[in-house]
């Protein structure tokens, strides 16, 4: 059986295609989290 590492080049290229999606999803997640935290703080102070 061939080790998965032997195909690392193929996997790396595939992953490279989806780096923008992962980066954007991460940014979106952080933005959502900050918005919610800001909302909770406003709710708490109000």
């Amino acid at each position, binding site marked *: 059986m061939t080790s998965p590492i032997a195909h690392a080049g193929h996997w790396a290229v595939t992953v490279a*295609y989806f780096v923008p999606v992962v980066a*954007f999803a991460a940014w979106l997640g952080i933005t*959502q989290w900050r918005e919610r935290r800001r909302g909770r703080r406003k709710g708490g102070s109000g």
Partner: protein
Amino acid sequence: MIPFAHGLVGRADLPIPEWLFGWGAAMVLVVSFVALAVLWPEPRLQQEGWRPLPGGVGRVLASRPVEIVCAALGVFVLGLVVYTGLRGTQTPTANFAPTFIYVIFWLALVPASVLFGDVFRAFNPWRAIGRAIAWLARVAVRGELPAALAYPERLGHWPAVAGIFAFAVMELVASSGDRPENLAIATLVYSVATFIGMALYGVEGWIERGEAFSVYFNLFSRLSPIETRGGVVGLRRPLSGLPALRPLPGTVPLLAVMIGSVTFDGAAEAPFWTNIAPDIAQFFQNLGLSPQSALELTFLVGLIGAILLVYGFYRLGVLGAKSVGGGFTAARLARAFVHSLVPIALAYVAAHYLTLLLFQGQAVGFLASDPLGDGADLFGTADSQIDYGVIGASATWYWQVGFVVAGHVIALTLAHDRAIAIYDNAKLAVRSQYWMLAVMVGFTSLALWLLSLANA
């Protein structure tokens, strides 16, 4: 599984790696998103602004003689496809029917619809036959026919979903889906189903909502600035045809089938699929299926998986848009933004099938001369050959990237315009579009990755 090759040669002279084009495409989308948020504060596409073509040209183009000629041509080609499929050689590449159905009808009509409007409506053979029969029946009874049944609202676009899915199964799953005889029989079966639908719900009632190919090509034609209204061909504001689309039950699944089937066609060449497909097929064989049935079922599973993936991805974007507030249900948002999936479907079709259309489309030159594949030479072109030099590998890639980027920028524009039309708060509208941007970036990356596999 049709044997036509999509991409034939590799690319060695690109200045940067292919995956870097994906990054560039994502950046173009982000920049477009920011530009739309700043420079597009009011809805501009919700009104079509339709006006007839000047000088009476619009009336001539949609006149009764032109209509009859187009309809007769459509009926003739339908008959030719069935005849050649049943009576001609059963070698798919030597018979007129497979190339006509899979390349000219299925692919070439897409750009034709985008450029010239709903041309399939004019050539639709089933509509032509249905209208002719209705006219003959009116003459025979010397009066009006009984009114057709009201089209059930719940049925929506679901018959079209079933039709397009069945076509995708024929093209991508059935091992003998390119056999001319099978295609002719499938055409006859579909014709009968269409005539039953038209008999029940009226010709136009069925054509507009239930007839799969009418709905399919009409969606693409909404990208065109050309539209026929009231028997007159006219022009409307570019991109304004899609916001006017009235989503019905089944519209979102229909778009998912359209995009998902192309996705599967590309993914079927990916190593992860070619690695797991034999294992899935073996599983089905162990259940008692023949090797061929097991393989077909495996591909059916893959096709359904790709469609569900696309559907799920869109639903995820919609749920994200819902989470920003505004008081909309997920179902309402899914319907509101579904029109933005049409340019994505176009981008997928145009990019993925570009070479198939340009190369195999030329085969019509010799197949028209020898439609049965029996050595005839009706127009003296039976010896013509496919010129594979019409487009190079690098040029193909650039065109494909261009289609993908343009399609997604248009999708983004349509979604943005709809968001600012339905949200009271401009800030909420933009925030809801973060999620649609995520969907677009995802579809763009997926498209370019699939293309890189298909062309490898």
